[in-house]
């Protein structure tokens, strides 16, 4: 996203998030529920490991033969009556979508939730073109009222508590909701959106899958808003990343079993819809035109580099729900379209490493994200690969490079290292009293928040050698 460069640095955003206790409450509610529901779903799904292996194999196969499946998909989509457009990057994708809207004299566009749409900056592009955009997903509706970007790829408004949503609806809905219980608020949103659904000229959706052998696109939702976005308007535009391809409908279902359980803990979404071409003669409804915009935006570059495994991602959000860092700072602090572990891998691809250098580092490497990933993406390994690239490209701060280099020079000379450690632990002891060090120069990051155990006084190596010498003398 081009907006990243104008934002505060990562650490400032993280600090602001940490200070926001309402945000923490909202994050804990949503991720806590998500974690519990996923665990319950998996406990009733004994074949998860087999399904995960199959899901990974399907994605790896498609990634290895992406050219083949892209051509097959294009051929079949065209045969179904859809028009297929290719976008090399986000700017091209925005230009294609706005051109289609403008050529159709569209004044009102409805949009079903799509992270790819956020990735290519579609909301801003439509506004710049003077087109009214209405978000139809309930959570997207909330953040549209708040003028915000999504903070989670499944629950875009998860950073807002229901009390805050009530405030937004009170001023944003005309008339305001009858009451502020969830049911009344949902009813109010439904009333607001219903009129827009029927008056829209163009409906824009993403796709969870692109099915190569039928040319269909598949969306899954729990609200039915995608169906109302894609069916009544004259024109339906799908924007999708090229990694969404699957060979057949059966493969889409194999991945759906993993996606839904990992995302919400359900077995199936309420609505799973395959869109195959525009309205045909004799059809009761459907759009007159269907356009599919296939977006690369860095993906073919990932094919050839160490981030290839990231193309397996099916955008379930389990990695962020189980991430200790995400659960402290939420999604906006990451500063990119995609937050959490998967975002920390993807944002440097999309925004460049210079703008996103902090993200791969702001991770404890605990591995829980990889453990829950339904397609076995080795997220910590990929984050480490960014760190290695950042090091090779000389992007790491000078103090870090100098410190590590000095340490490595010592550590590769064991005799000198032993001597330095003996001196070091004695020096360190001077800063403490009793068993603890409460303040230590150059280690303020540690001692600002916690005490440091004071070293025993003699290193293991010196004690061990003395012990060996005594044993030798006693023999």
């Amino acid at each position, binding site marked *: 996203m081009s907006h990243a460069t104008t934002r505060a640095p990562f650490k400032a955003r993280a600090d602001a998030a940490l200070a926001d206790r309402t945000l923490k409450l909202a994050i804990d509610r949503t991720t806590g529920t998500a974690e519990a529901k996923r665990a319950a779903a998996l406990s009733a799904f004994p074949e998860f490991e087999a399904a995960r292996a199959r899901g990974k194999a399907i994605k790896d196969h498609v990634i290895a033969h992406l050219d083949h499946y892209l051509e097959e998909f294009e051929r079949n989509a065209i045969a179904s009556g859809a028009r297929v457009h290719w976008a090399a990057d986000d700017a091209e994708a925005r230009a294609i979508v706005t051109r289609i809207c403008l050529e159709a004299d569209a004044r009102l566009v409805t949009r079903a939730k799509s992270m790819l749409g956020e990735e290519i900056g579609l909301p801003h592009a439509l506004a710049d073109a003077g087109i009214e955009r209405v978000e139809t997903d309930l959570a997207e509706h909330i953040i549209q009222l708040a003028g915000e970007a999504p903070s989670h790829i499944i629950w875009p408004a998860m950073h807002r508590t229901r009390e805050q949503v009530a405030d937004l609806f009170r001023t944003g809905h005309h008339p305001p909701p009858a009451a502020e219980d969830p049911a009344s608020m949902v009813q109010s949103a439904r009333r607001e959106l219903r009129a827009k659904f029927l008056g829209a000229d163009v409906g824009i959706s993403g796709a969870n899958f692109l099915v190569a052998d039928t040319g269909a696109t598949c969306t899954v939702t729990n609200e039915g808003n995608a169906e109302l976005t894609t069916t009544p308007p004259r024109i339906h535009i799908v924007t999708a990343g090229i990694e969404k391809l699957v060979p057949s409908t059966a493969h889409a279902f194999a991945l759906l079993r993993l996606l839904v359980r990992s995302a919400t803990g359900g077995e199936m979404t309420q609505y799973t819809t395959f869109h195959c071409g525009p309205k045909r003669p004799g059809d009761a409804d459907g759009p007159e035109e269907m356009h599919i915009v296939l977006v690369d935006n860095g993906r073919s570059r990932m094919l050839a580099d160490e981030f290839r495994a990231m193309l397996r991602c099916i955008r379930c959000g389990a990695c962020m729900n189980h991430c200790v860092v995400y659960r402290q700072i939420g999604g906006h602090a990451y500063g990119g379209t995609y937050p959490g572990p998967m975002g920390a891998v993807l944002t440097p691809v999309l925004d460049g490493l210079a703008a996103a250098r902090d993200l791969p580092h702001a991770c404890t490497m605990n591995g*829980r994200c990889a453990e829950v990933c339904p397609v076995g993406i080795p997220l910590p390994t990929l984050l480490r690969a960014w760190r290695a690239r950042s090091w090779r490209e000389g992007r790491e701060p000078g103090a870090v490079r100098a410190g590590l280099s000095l340490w490595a020079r010592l550590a590769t000379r064991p005799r000198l290292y032993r001597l330095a450690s003996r001196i070091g632990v004695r020096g360190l002891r001077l800063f403490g009293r009793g068993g603890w060090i409460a303040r230590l120069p150059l280690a303020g990051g540690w001692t600002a928040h916690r005490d440091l155990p004071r070293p025993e006084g003699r290193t293991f190596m010196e004690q061990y050698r003395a012990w060996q010498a005594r044993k030798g003398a006693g023999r």
Partner: protein
Amino acid sequence: MSAKPAPRVGLFVTCLVDAIRPRIGFAAIQLLEEAGCIVEVPLAQTCCGQPAFNSGDDADAARLARQTIAAFEGFDHVVLPSGSCAATMVHGYPDLLAGDADWAARARDLAARTHEITSFLVDVMGFRPEGRRLEASATYHDSCSGLRDLGVAAQPRALLAAVEGLQMRGLEGNDVCCGFGGTFCVKYAPISNAIVTEKAEAIQRSGADLLLAGDLGCLMNMAGKLHRSGAATRCFHTIEVLAGQADGPAIGEEG
């Protein structure tokens, strides 16, 4: 015991144990000897290289990997009182040196012989401590690398179950990271602090007298936070309790 010759074990002490808490290293020697091993501590060891590896400094990490591989060639087993250093040797070294014709096979050979200590005692030696008694309650934190990269979960619990009088208490979020993360805890100190604050609260809610874990880095983080927040929980490496050393000073107590 069987009549098999005693295995020769090289102990990798780890840089943190060497500097901060040597008694963990001596507990390791004691337990390995009780289990019937011949233990040696090669002097050519320093650090496994994890700080460089996780910072993306592959060249320095590879230098330390080669040094460690050379220092531990010829041992039947290499044992470490740390899941994260062991995981660096088991998974990190072979990755790091995969493209190095001279060292790739040696890295894989070391990886195949390397073990975190509690899993080595249980899975390889079939060992349980005998005659240990400790009247206390304890809770156990699963350090991430040991748990996820090496499958260390049942082994420390099986060993602790052999300590008479020791009551184990559950820890909410026992498999959730403590926020240490090596250099992460100083590079992103406020985030790390938020994570360890929640961990320390969960430890206190467990009501246990002792907190046990298998990695000194995580222990220093949790013990340091517990002490700063005024908690009375005493923190030990698992193997200190197994070696009967819990009557000595806990982390942060003067000996």
